[in-house]
């Protein structure tokens, strides 16, 4: 129902975001300065964290975004404001690190503090809300993702963040970072691939043979319920036995502790979504379509390959999306049993109470899952459109 609006409209959500920005700007430190890597640090407000001119510009831009959030109604304007804000504070925190660190001091560490994270959160909320209201199509979402990824790459490659503690941790471990990255992807994607190879036929079989259906779903449901670290633990015993007694297994690199139990556990977790969605996809193919295909003289194999699987594909893909996001997150835990991956840095960081090391493992994990979710959602939308 249309209501009469006053000309100056205060947006509720925008006001909350503006409040968050004010809190971040005036009441919380922008960066934390520590004399070395492990001592506790002291916070610096934004005014003290940048040279006067830089601080002035940053504060002006941030306040402008807050104003926009509270008053502007068009999603595009709000999105532009949020992007501008993000484009200012991300480089600013990098420059601030260079400014706060005393010249020639190689021990001092500067990290983004709560004020920076709150600002980033506020801008990200504003951008997310605007993007949601814009209702971008699949291509639009992919474009937004690539712009964000490109901006991030530019920020990191330009060296603007090199004085930040996070990047110093990275610089000390660049080689092992990429090794663990490969291991993480191999664990997550490899186990997903294996689950697809096994899960698709299994889903097809349980679609065709109703007697199998309940047994398979219930068995996999129980596996899904077991917490990851417990499943790793349960797999370690038999794999250790196998490695000790079967020379071939040991030759293949299977050991009780390490990547093998992690890979198998991720594989087992992946089966339920693949199998359940294959079944759901196949069972929603309308009976009259199959009947028509039969009438046209297609053999069962042709019906499956040309009619049933293409129609079920979007639903199967939705299962694969669940698996991919789940695996990218769960692979972090593999580090606990010596399986490698980004979790290595997370657990090392926990052990040393070094938050930047934790972030070095956590941020890429979150970024990967996030990107995977957006990309697969877009692909699912595109295939739905194609199937419809």
């Amino acid at each position, binding site marked *: 129902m249309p209501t009469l609006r006053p000309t100056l409209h205060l947006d509720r959500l925008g006001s909350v975001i503006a409040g968050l920005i004010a809190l971040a700007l005036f009441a919380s430190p922008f960066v934390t300065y520590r004399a070395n890597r492990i001592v506790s640090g002291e916070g610096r407000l934004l005014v003290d964290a940048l040279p006067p001119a830089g601080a002035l510009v940053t504060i002006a831009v941030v306040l402008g975004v807050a104003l926009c959030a509270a008053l502007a109604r068009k999603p595009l304007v709000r999105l532009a404001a949020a992007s501008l804000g993000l484009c200012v504070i991300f480089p600013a925190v990098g420059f601030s690190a260079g400014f706060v660190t005393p010249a020639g001091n190689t021990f001092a560490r500067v990290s983004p503090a709560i004020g920076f994270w709150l600002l980033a959160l506020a801008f990200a909320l504003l951008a*997310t809300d605007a993007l949601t209201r814009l209702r971008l199509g699949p291509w639009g979402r992919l474009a937004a993702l690539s712009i964000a990824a490109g901006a991030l790459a530019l920020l990191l490659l330009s060296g603007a963040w090199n004085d930040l503690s996070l990047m110093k941790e990275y610089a000390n471990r660049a080689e092992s970072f990429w090794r663990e990255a490969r291991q993480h992807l191999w664990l997550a994607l490899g186990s997903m691939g294996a689950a697809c190879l096994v899960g698709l036929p299994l889903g097809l079989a349980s679609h065709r043979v109703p007697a199998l259906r309940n047994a398979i779903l219930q068995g996999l449901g129980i596996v899904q319920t077991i917490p990851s670290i*417990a499943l790793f633990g349960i797999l370690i*015993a038999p794999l*250790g036995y196998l490695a000790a007694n079967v020379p071939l297994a040991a030759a293949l690199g299977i050991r009780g*502790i390490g990547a093998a139990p992690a890979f198998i556990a991720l594989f087992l977790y992946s089966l339920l979504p693949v199998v359940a969605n294959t079944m759901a996809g196949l069972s929603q193919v309308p009976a009259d379509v199959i009947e028509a295909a039969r009438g046209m003289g297609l053999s069962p194999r042709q019906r499956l390959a040309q009619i049933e699987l293409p129609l079920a594909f979007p639903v199967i893909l939705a299962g694969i999306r669940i698996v991919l996001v789940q695996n990218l997150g769960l692979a972090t835990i593999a580090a606990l049993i010596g399986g490698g991956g980004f979790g290595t840095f*997370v657990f090392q960081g926990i052990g040393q109470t070094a938050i930047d090391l*934790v972030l070095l493992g*956590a941020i890429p994990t*979150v970024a990967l899952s996030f990107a995977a979710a957006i990309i697969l959602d877009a692909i699912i939308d595109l295939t739905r459109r194609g199937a419809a």
Partner: protein
Amino acid sequence: MSVRAVILRAAALLLLVAFVTAPQLFAFAFAPLTANNAPAIYNQGSLLALTLSHLRIVALATLASTVLAVALGIFVTRPKGREFLPLSRSLVNIGQTFPPIAVLAIAVPLVGFGEKPTFIALFLYGLLPIFENTLAGLTGVSPRTLEAAKGMGMNARQRLWQVELPLALPVILAGIRLSVIISLGTATIGSTVAAKGLGEVIIAGLQSNNVAFILQGGLVVALLAVLIHDGLGLVERAAARRLGRPLDGTA
């Protein structure tokens, strides 16, 4: 549920209780897994105490996330909070791409080691499924039903308490169940940040290379999760039955 399923669950529960109260009775089964005379049964604390503190932190965190998530779910589906609905939907989607371990690890430097970071991670991560299901449950109530309630002269508060929430209850309960299961797993990882819980047994086993510890820790956590999952499933079905409609799905 068939008689066989009931017997199976009762046996599993009995086994679990017997194992955590008198683990030494089972030493013979784990002894072959040890080497160099290492203890076969976890000996650095009582399994019962660890199980109880594990359950306590999961229960407390779930209670807290349920209260907040349901309140938020109600807020964004009222006329006053509608403006927040699209954003909160996207946030739930984005939030679920965060692995629980990342939340746990980031909380440690902020609040220190122990129960606190674990509680924070369980609480924050537990919000998502409950909030998502509260939204699904409340927005799934048909407009016709609400119209009828309005026609009967119910005010907004009565509609919420007597119509919307009871209809949404089974879906909300499903969210709570999912949240509890995720929390049981995250609490296990919480032992890496020194929270008291069953993860301790597994971690002690990993550190001392004692497969018997790893296996018994894993089995206790797994049995606990499966039994709680089943138990909450029964509650859910009872709630659905009260509404006179069977809950579909096999779970």
